[in-house]
């Protein structure tokens, strides 16, 4: 498979372990320049999935990210060292951060040691993964711009996350959550659930 993109502003290639199903669209290989996954499927983009200019897949060696059918990733900033998945028909707006870990230890002395290692190598891998907690996002989920989805978060099918929300924990199916910290706003009613 051709691993370069026609007209790409960035002179790079899409890594071999990025699985792209038919009809999926990636705007620039730059989105993968921090993708260091050694998993057989470091990234899976489903049929008709799209990843636009604003996407950045910062994936560590043990990380894996999956996005389902027709899921639109406008500007996803992903920090992934375990598993992060988003289902089918997802809508992810611009500047949305989804992270399964903080890439920094809570202990200040440990952070200093990490920053010494980083200054010596400038390798992104030296910003150590710590306690990664997988993030799971269901089908048909809509995430507004500038949101942060924190480690360990589970968002069930059909939920809507308002712009600039910071989500941590569990969002039930067909719920609307918003705010920082995000709180339950309302449940989508039956007529709104009909996909026809």
């Amino acid at each position, binding site marked *: 498979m051709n691993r370069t993109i026609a007209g790409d502003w960035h002179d790079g290639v899409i890594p071999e372990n990025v699985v792209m199903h038919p009809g999926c669209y990636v705007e620039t290989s730059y989105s993968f320049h921090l993708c260091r996954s050694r998993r057989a499927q470091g990234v899976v983009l489903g049929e008709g999935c799209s990843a636009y200019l604003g996407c*950045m897949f910062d994936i560590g060696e043990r990380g894996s990210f999956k996005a389902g059918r027709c899921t639109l990733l406008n500007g996803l*900033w992903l*920090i992934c060292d375990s598993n992060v998945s988003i289902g089918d028909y997802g809508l992810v707006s611009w*500047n949305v*951060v989804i*992270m399964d870990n*903080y890439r*920094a230890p*809570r202990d*200040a002395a440990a*952070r*200093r040691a990490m*920053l*010494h290692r*980083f*200054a*010596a*190598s*400038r*390798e*992104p891998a030296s*910003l150590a993964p710590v306690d990664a907690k997988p993030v799971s996002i269901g089908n048909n989920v809509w995430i507004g711009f*500038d*949101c*942060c989805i*924190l480690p360990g978060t589970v968002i069930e099918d059909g939920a809507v996350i308002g712009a*600039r*929300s*910071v989500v941590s924990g569990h969002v039930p199916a067909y719920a609307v959550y918003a*705010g*920082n*910290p995000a709180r339950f706003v309302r449940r989508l009613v039956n007529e709104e659930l009909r996909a026809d």
Partner: protein
Amino acid sequence: MSEAATNQPVWDGGSLPAGVIVGQGVVIRGTAALQRFRSQHADGLTVGESSTLDGVQFSVGPQGRIRIGRFCCLTNAILMCDEQINIGDYVLIGWNVVIADTDFHPLAPAQRVADAVACSPIGNDRSRPNVECRPVSIGSDVFIGPNATILKGVRIGDGAWIEPGSVVTRDVAVGAHVGGNPAKVIALQDGESVR
């Protein structure tokens, strides 16, 4: 990416403008980094030894002055400074963080009209009304998560942890863990729960 250390230039955008002082082993990446650096101070931007500024954008006015300590790592942050922003050592700042020491425009409606006119293409170099600035100070060993915003006058104590997406409008105590909009204390230094 990895061979940046020794023979590479400090900044991949060219030679550093006057008023930028960097310590040994500093790396500044991104051609837009200093496009809006207009400080007239001889030390308009000081960056300590071994710090990394990757994709950071500085918008610094003529009177602005930014100091960043040693072994800091800032990624794609935006620093807007008309007076003073101080950042200590070993500070980690994530994607899309905004730090500003000013609100850019006056609060009073009549003054805002005058400011809008002065800023407009038909302003004919009219002088702008005074806009309040208050220095921002960030201690050492501070972590600031992605998408956070630090507003004017805020002082963040050493070792504080600012959650992603926080909007910090008030001072943060040494070692405190804060999050939310507006940012509130989640835990204090010893891990003691607040509520």
